[in-house]
């Protein structure tokens, strides 16, 4: 067993909160640059250029890309040969979020669902734990903004709807979103498992590097078709008209129940922030 002190996890999470909010991933930046070339609307091109400038400012000045610094969504891949010492792992993760959001001048966005009173330290984060072979701990942190999360849906399709039904549902969902989720967006599609598993797959799909299609050729073709259909809707950057509404569609799939066809659509704004570290 390899011992990992939970204080290392706190430090790592704290840094990830700040870095993820200040530095737009390179693949997203590159995709936005390509979008400037593809966009036909002058207003759309202006929006994309401003988004790129914004990312430059955030990086240079180490300020948040977006004022919505999100709920911290954390994927913990824990090697089965790791033994955590020095305290409670969950509390260590929470403490990292607390410190990162405070010291990084990040906005705290968690609140009571009904009174709407702000929790004040951006806890709790949403933590997904996975046990994997090995003796390492991989932490991926993705701040998720409310605007695009609000536009996400899970639909329990009928098996008879098939792949065509999935594609139609995803395109329809985007069509209904308009400018709300801060387009150009990344569309995560999760099909399979149960109700909550499909949503998890859709979220995971958002973390895949842009420009890397699903290795399954049929799914890769579906991604491409959905992307083209979404962009043909004409909604464009910020929904003000144009030819680039989505930068990518990422489709993840797993087996499901013989009675079901769960289909989740998780939408990410252009500030598709995520950072990772391995301890």
């Amino acid at each position, binding site marked *: 067993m390899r011992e990992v002190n939970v204080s290392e996890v706190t430090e790592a999470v704290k840094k990830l909160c700040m870095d993820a909010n200040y530095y737009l991933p390179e693949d997203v930046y590159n995709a936005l640059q390509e979008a400037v070339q593809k966009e036909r609307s002058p207003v759309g091109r202006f929006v994309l250029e401003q*988004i790129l400038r914004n990312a430059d*400012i955030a990086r240079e000045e180490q*300020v948040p890309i977006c004022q919505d610094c999100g709920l911290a969504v954390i994927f913990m891949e824990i090697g089965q040969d790791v033994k955590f010492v020095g305290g409670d792992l969950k509390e260590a993760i929470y403490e990292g979020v607390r410190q990162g959001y405070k010291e990084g001048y990040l*906005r705290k*966005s968690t609140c009571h669902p009904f009174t709407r009173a702000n929790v004040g330290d951006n806890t709790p984060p949403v933590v997904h734990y996975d046990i994997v072979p090995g003796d390492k701990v991989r932490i991926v942190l993705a701040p998720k903004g409310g605007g695009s999360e609000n536009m996400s849906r899970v639909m329990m399709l009928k098996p008879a709807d098939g792949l065509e039904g999935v594609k139609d549902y995803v395109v329809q969902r985007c069509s209904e979103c308009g400018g709300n989720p801060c387009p150009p967006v990344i569309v995560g599609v999760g099909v399979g498992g149960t109700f909550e598993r499909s949503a998890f797959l859709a979220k995971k799909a958002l973390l895949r590097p842009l420009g890397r299609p699903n290795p399954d050729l049929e799914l890769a073709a579906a991604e491409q078709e959905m992307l083209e259909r979404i962009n043909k*809707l*004409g909604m464009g950057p910020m929904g003000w008209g144009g030819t680039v509404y989505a930068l990518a569609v990422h489709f993840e799939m797993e087996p499901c129940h013989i009675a079901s066809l769960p289909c989740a659509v998780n939408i990410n704004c252009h500030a598709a922030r995520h950072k990772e570290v391995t301890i």
Partner: protein
Amino acid sequence: MAEDYIRLTTPLSDEDVERLKIGDRVLLNGVIYTGRDAAHKRMVEALDKGEDLPFDVRGQVIYFVGPTPAKPGKPIGSAGPTTSYRMDPYSPKLIALGLKGMIGKGGRSQEVIDACVKYKCVYFGAIGGAGALLAKQIKKAEVIAYEDLGPEAVRRLEVEDFPVIVVNDVYGNDLEKEGRNQYEVKE
């Protein structure tokens, strides 16, 4: 800045908003106020109880934003727009009282669009997710009400050449609809 901008200074008059059409790029100057979900709820509750609002909305512009905390030496943190439809249940009441502008992102309800026509108010869009860039046009910020709401408190901002685009004008036009019609590729 490009030359095709219209410069406006708050407070705005009926004449100011009447000359604006969807797609116009505007640079706002002067004082604007912030308010998002929780602040709107409180303001409308105050009105229902016959109480005063934290500021006189006549001629003013409300920016739907919840900024990040200011780093030392800066007036404000990142400060881009939040999604506007969540303010749709509240906006018509403020528009009827003489509010002249709102800044946010995303579309508005028919009720808001109708109120904009009836009472002459404009809905501006700012670029969502460009909070670091937009913050540079905010020169001063102070909390004037509902401090307990944290990022959602009502702030008085002084802005210089704050860039927005007209999404809904006083003539009932809608940039989201028009823009989409222009670029939609029909099969």
